[in-house]
């Protein structure tokens, strides 16, 4: 399926689960309701017209200033049909709040590590995560969530002199 028809197809089939969809640089991007996040992903994987059985990338973005929360962005694609799309969802959070969302591990096992990374670096809690340990940071790390914007960090972060 080419990107245009994919955009149309998803918008029509899953209209109650998404907030909006648009074309960004040739790839369909959809804004998903946080509570429908896991179910939509599962459907897109199982739908024989989309067959999104692989994850290309899964990232979290700190949009607390701009949109008032964290965004999860996942790019999924199909090896067989050779198309991809991007899903986004906004998790509202202010200041030091830790947002929560259901884990995607049940849909694509590869997201386990991605989510572990997001959990420790951004401070997003994934409910029912099968392996909620630190991935990158040491087990006894307690200096906060380093990838959050404005994290000033600890003694060992050196900032260049201006």
């Amino acid at each position, binding site marked *: 399926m080419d990107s245009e028809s994919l955009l149309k197809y998803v918008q029509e089939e899953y209209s109650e689960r998404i907030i909006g969809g648009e074309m960004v640089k040739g790839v369909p991007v959809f804004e998903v309701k946080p509570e429908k996040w896991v179910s939509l992903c599962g459907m897109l994987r199982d739908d024989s017209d989309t067959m999104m059985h692989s994850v290309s990338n899964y990232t979290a973005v700190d949009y607390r200033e701009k949109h008032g929360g964290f965004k999860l962005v996942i790019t999924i694609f199909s090896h067989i049909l050779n198309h991809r799309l991007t899903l986004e969802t906004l998790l509202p959070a202010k200041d030091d709040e830790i947002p929560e969302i259901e884990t995607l591990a049940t849909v694509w096992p590869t997201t386990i590590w991605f989510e572990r990374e997001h959990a420790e670096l951004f401070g997003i809690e994934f409910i029912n995560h099968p392996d909620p340990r630190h991935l*990158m*940071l*040491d087990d006894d790390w307690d*200096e906060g969530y380093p990838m959050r914007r404005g994290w000033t960090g600890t003694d*060992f972060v*050196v*900032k*260049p002199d201006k």
Partner: protein
Amino acid sequence: MGIISKLPAYMETIPGGGILTTTTEKLLNLSRASSLWYMLFGLACCAIEGLMATGASRYDFDRFGMIFRASPRQSDLMIVAGTLTHKMGKRLKVLYDQMPDPKYVIAMGGCANNGGPFYYDCYSVMKGVDKIVPVDIYIPGCPPRPESVLEACIQLQEKVKKEKMGKWSASTE
């Protein structure tokens, strides 16, 4: 410390043993300098250059009598090749402690010297190996060329050759 390293100290007590001591010392030092077995401590990019490419045919560490040992118990030299993170730092210290005396450390590359390109704005990288273990030779570069690794080994050999026997036996006992 092996038994033989106490030899010069005993010799000194013999009348006229001074000359003997220097000769023995020189010989022992020479043997240590000619057989620096290094432990594989490849952490990042420098491991490819410093340990693999330097060990391969074109540069050939073996010419200097240097072979790699996988076990720290059997190595004399630790070439810390690459970025040392705080998480790895603890493990490095353990491995260093496991090496038998006399032992040497070469910090290879910018990251091992002081953090290198990961000095600023970085929350996980240790700013230099010398924060946790004593370093004998620093090699600049990112990554250093194999030639500079060989040069560092020659420098270390020079250093070992000049060592006084009492020095390292006193410092560790």
